[in-house]
Structures are given as structure tokens and as C-alpha cells.
């Protein structure tokens, strides 16, 4: 059942973004920033967790979920370190994905070079 919800919720978040791209002056960059910030806000307010429980990756794989992870990380860091957690929380939560992207990008640059489009 989670698979169906993952598909539907993930698809819906993508559909909304596509709608905004096609019909508003908002650039993809702005939309993605809005998504991640939205994820942080909803996560901090505890409003995103139900969606995560319902749709699993449908909620966490989209960029909104990245923001949600940041909010969770901040909450945990504050609980462990107090005020310092405000500074250490966000990037720590983002560390896994960011480092993975960084390393994959670096390796891609080692092994590949740009090709013209067809």
C-alpha cells in the first residue's frame, strides 16, 4: 500500500512543480528552494511526519523531504547540544546526501566529459 502512496504523493509533488514551471514566471531554481524551505517549515511544525508515515519515499525523496530531514536533524541536535544544535543540526542532517552528491560529482568529472546534445 505504501508503494501506491509513494507513487501518488511523489508524483503529485512533481506535478505541482511542473505546473508552476509551465504556467508561472517562477524558475525551477526558485521552486526547488521553495520546496526545501517548505519541507523545513512543515517538518518543524510536525505537519510533515504524517505524510512520511503514509507515503514513505513519496514524501522523503522529493526535495521537500530533504527539508524535512533538516528540520528533524535540528530538533535532534538541539535536544542533544542545546543552542549549539541550531548551528550543527541543519548541515549534519544534509551531510549524507550532500557528501554523496559531491563525491559522485567528483568521480563523474574524473571519468566523464561533457558531450553535445542530440
Amino acid at each position, binding site marked *: 500500500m505504501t508503494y501506491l502512496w509513494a507513487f501518488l504523493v511523489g508524483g503529485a509533488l512533481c506535478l505541482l512543480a511542473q505546473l508552476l*514551471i509551465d504556467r508561472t514566471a517562477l524558475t*525551477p531554481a526558485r521552486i526547488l528552494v521553495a520546496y526545501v524551505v517548505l519541507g523545513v517549515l512543515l517538518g518543524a511544525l510536525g505537519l510533515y511526519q504524517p505524510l512520511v508515515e503514509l507515503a514513505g519515499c513519496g514524501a522523503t525523496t522529493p526535495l521537500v523531504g530533504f527539508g524535512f530531514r533538516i528540520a528533524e536533524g535540528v530538533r535532534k541536535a538541539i535536544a542533544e547540544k542545546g543552542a549549539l544544535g541550531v548551528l550543527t543540526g541543519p548541515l549534519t542532517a544534509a551531510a549524507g546526501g550532500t557528501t554523496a552528491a559531491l563525491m559522485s560529482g567528483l568521480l563523474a568529472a574524473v571519468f566523464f566529459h*561533457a*558531450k*553535445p*546534445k542530440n
Partner: protein
Amino acid sequence: MAHGILTMRRPVYLLDAASVGGHEEAAGPLGAYLDRHDAKNDDFGQDTWEAAESEMNRLAAEVLLTRAGLDAAEIGALFAGDLLNQCTGSGYGLLPFDVPYFGLYGACSTAAEGLLLAALFVDHFGGRAMSAASSHFCSAERQFRFPMEYGGQRTPTSQWTVTGAAAFLLGGDRAEAARHGRAVRIAEALPGITIDQGITDANNMGAAMAPAAADTILRYLRESGREPQSFDMIVTGDLGAEGASILCELCRAGGAELAGVHRDCGLLIYDRAATDKHAGGSGCGCSALVLAGYLLAQLRAGTLGDILLVGTGALLSPMVVQQGRSIPGIAHLVRITTKEATA
């Protein structure tokens, strides 16, 4: 009369032209007209896209001079430009040729701008002059838009930067001009005035440039007293489908009906039905390749007799667009004809 049509006082001929294109251009409807092309990956054997663009420039100039049997010492001036910052595409590519060098920036109107200036040079000083213009899809994307492998979508009004370079040779000798067919003459020119009508969408260059094209064309028609239909073709550089449509409406509102006589290089160079090129081709190389190959061939053969080439350019930079500024356009007009010059 300060902004009027510049009429050549002596015959100035487009003696010859050479063009070099990429794989898309070679596979397109006008591919047969290219003198050289890279059928594989547009790198022309170089390590970077910028060097590839320079190499295209070098090849075009080399083919041109070799075919004409001339060396650099016989060329009075070279007017060249491209889309890259500081025009390094043409600047570095044309380094081997020791000709007095004028670097130009007219964005996609550079081919027409260079041709215009070279014609004026020959008209005044005699002898021979060259002009050149180039663009490369990959180097332009890097500078103006996104990395090649980035997964973004292009809007329907966006255009495809042509990978191509062309070099043009101008001179006053009729015998030289008649070597390949009818003698093709640069008869008149009308320099463009920059016009900004508030377009901020960098993906809709056609709309940004159309007002400038309309302005130049209408000014020319008004002063010359000619009707659009008296020309075999009024061909714009790269308005694309979007800009061409707007141009026709703007001209109609200004009293000139372009239907039937208007063509656009951006729409000629690719088969838009078969390939995903959205609104059509763009870039300095667009009008350069179409003029150097297809148009020159038709003029020499006599299928075209009297045409107006209107190179169009959008004078933006990515940074300035990020700062919220709108995009100015410019259009330079050159009348190219096989009709004899009247005394």
C-alpha cells in the same frame, strides 16, 4: 540623413564565403552547403568547446583564403565576433591570420554587422576585407545557460544555438566576384538601432529582437520607397518561429506586409518537424552559415536576385538578466543583390 541608408559608392562584391558546421547543422536541410563539418561530437579535435569554436573560425578563414588563392597580406581588415565573453571564439581562432583585426559584439547579428563594416571598408578604401562570425552550442550553453548534462527543460520559445562559423571575403573586382556564378554585390546597408521593449525572458529572444528587426526593416522600406514584395527575400537572422511571427505583425502594423517574402535563418537551418529545436536556430553562426552557404549559392545561381539580410541580436548577458534588466535587441540590414550597380 544621419540615420539613412548607406549606399556603396563603388561596387563592393561578396567575392566568396566559407562555412564550417557541427553535426546538427551538417544533418540539417542546408548541410550540403558546408565546406567542413564535424559529424561526430562538435569538438573539432579540441579539448574544450571554446577551443572547438576557435578551430571552426580558423578552418573557415583558411578554406576561404586557400580557395581564393590569397594570403593575409592582401586583406585590408578583418571584422569578426562571436557570443563568448571577450569574443575569444573568433579572437583566438583568427590569431594565425595577420590581418588588421576588429573584434565585434553584435550577439547574433554579428555576421550582418561584420559584413556591413567590411563592405564600408572596401567601399572607402578599396582592396579586400574579410568578416567572420561564429557560435557553438556547447560554449554558448556554458556561458548563457546550463552545463551540457544538466537535466532542465527548454521552453517552446527557446532556440538552439547553431554550432558554426563562416568567413566572408569582400572586394571590388568584378571578375573575381564572377568566378563562381553571378557577381554578388553588397549594395546598401542600414545599421541597426538598439531597441528595448521590456522583454525579461531570456528564453524568448525572438520577442526581444523582433521590435529591432521591425524598426530596421520599416526604416529601410520607408526611406527606399520600396515594397517588401519587390525583394526576392527579406531574411532575418534568428528570430525563430516566435520572433518571426511577431515581426510580421509589427511590420503589418507599420504598413509593410512581409507575408510570402520573409524567411528566417533560424527556421531554415534545422528541420524543426524532425528534430527537437523548439523555436529554431540562433547564434552568430546561424545567419553566418545560411548566408555563406545557401543564400550565396542561390544568388550566384540566379534563383535569388535581390535580398535583404537582417541580422538580429539580443544584447543581454546572464548577469544583467539576473539583475532584472530587460533585453535590448538590434538588427543590422544589408542589401545583397546580383543586379548591376547603376552609375
